[in-house]
């Protein structure tokens, strides 16, 4: 099936219109990490647009340490059976066999994620070989464009997962927005050098410079824990948010999840965000990213 010619967003990428299109359907929504069928049900009932099925949320991966891998297929298929919204699951960076397994399980999206322990410190998965779509993390524009070239149909800025500290998420979306804005201001003959500096293909760089936006949907992840965090990311121009540990590591997951969904839709209405922020109980405790020693910063995984 040829899909390239019909997509006005995926022209220079390996991704197809059905796969970039599913990400477009998730826009304005919240994707929630869940570790059990019960949590998946709570997430769907709260209005999540998709769930990320995994064994441990990032905060627990941090606490437990050790090698973090793809989740047990039983857990993933159980969650697929539980909900009617799309189900995503994580594979390790470069672990193409975990990705093959997830595709076989019929997940709707694979997250090639730095939250798990990398399986390859040089190469990412060749995502163009798969029919199932991929979302990948990025801390800057060059990284995003390399992932799109490999076939990613959706990008999420990384932030720093499992911290409840939104500062890295802010840094990454500002960086990506700033680099896109700079490209749009360059003369056409300056884009060759820009492509070299970004370590990304010239055709894709030229497309971004012309359109002023990524050719795929951009969500924000890593540290979003409150309705205000989500609304701030939407005001920064994010297409939507991932909330990992922020919901089920808080005092009142169902209410907090619904509140973050509401704040994501009415992100520019302080009255609604204020109302959504009331009486949610304890937020996740959190870790300041500045207190994390460099080897424990997940955002630095990915190349």
């Amino acid at each position, binding site marked *: *099936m040829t*899909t390239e010619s*019909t*997509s*006005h*967003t995926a022209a220079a990428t390996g991704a*197809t*219109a*059905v*796969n970039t*299109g*599913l990400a*477009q*359907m*998730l*826009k*304005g*929504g919240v994707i929630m990490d869940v570790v059990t069928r019960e949590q998946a049900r709570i997430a*769907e*009932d*709260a*209005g*999540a*647009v*998709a769930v990320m099925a995994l064994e441990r949320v990032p905060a627990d991966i941090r606490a437990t340490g050790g090698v973090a891998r793809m989740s047990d297929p039983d857990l993933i298929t159980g969650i*697929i059976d539980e*909900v*009617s*919204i*799309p189900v995503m699951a994580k594979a390790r960076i470069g672990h193409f066999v975990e990705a093959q397994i997830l*595709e076989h399980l*019929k*997940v*709707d*999206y694979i997250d090639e994620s730095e939250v798990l322990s990398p399986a390859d410190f040089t190469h990412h998965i060749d995502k163009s070989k798969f*029919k*199932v*779509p991929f979302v990948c993390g990025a801390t800057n524009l060059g990284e995003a464009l390399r992932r799109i070239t490999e076939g990613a149909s959706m990008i999420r800025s990384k932030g720093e997962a499992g911290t409840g500290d939104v500062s890295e998420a802010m840094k990454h979306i500002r960086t990506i927005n700033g680099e896109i804005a700079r490209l749009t201001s360059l003369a056409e003959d300056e884009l060759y050098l820009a492509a070299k500096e970004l370590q990304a293909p010239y055709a894709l760089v030229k497309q971004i410079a012309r359109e002023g936006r990524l050719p795929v949907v951009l969500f924000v992840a890593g540290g979003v824990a409150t309705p205000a965090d989500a609304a701030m990311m939407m005001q920064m121009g994010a297409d939507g948010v991932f909330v990992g540990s922020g919901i089920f590591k808080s005092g009142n997951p169902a209410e907090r999840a*619904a509140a973050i*969904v*509401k704040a994501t*839709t*009415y992100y520019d209405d302080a009255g609604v965000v204020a109302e959504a922020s009331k009486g949610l109980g304890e937020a996740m405790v959190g870790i300041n990213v500045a207190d994390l020693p460099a080897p424990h910063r997940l955002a630095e995984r990915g190349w």
Partner: protein
Amino acid sequence: MSTPRIGVLALQGAVAEHARALRAAGAEVSTVRRPSELQGLDGLIVPGGESTTMARLAAPVRLMESIRERHAEGMAMFGTCAGMILMADQILDAEALNGFERIGGLDVVVRRNGYGSQLESFIGPLQVPGLPGDDPTPLEAVFIRAPVIESLGVDVEVIASWQDRPVAVRQGRILAASFHPELTPDHRLHQYFVEISAEQTVS
């Protein structure tokens, strides 16, 4: 005839894509997240996204009821994918929507995710002989975790079918498609909807 004013329900989903297609088709476009924003609209698009999310966000402000009321007063409606689900009179496999108000009004029975998971999503060329302009070029239709129309009432006109199943239908001032015309540069369905909306314009 003045330029029709068409809203896009902007609770969640492919809002910007519909807005772009509508502008290209000659409409004046606004977004709708609150009942007051329905005032003065000649038409409303309910986009693709997650119907479960939209139904939950609409409930506290009674947006689905308000859309139904405005439709009864003459506002045209176009539902794509999730939007079609929210307009269908009957839904199969609808546990996740139980207890939540929907728009209704389209006499069809729809099955959510009728084709299966994302691996079953596809693009198919549709024959659309009935659309204005009589362009014989097939319409490239993008189906994403699409709903299936299982049956339809006598007043529902089929505009396009895929493998003998209706995938685009019209019933009076309601247009609905199980695919995503907003994702391709072919704006014939949006043009058709702008025309339907203009017919309903009450001066």
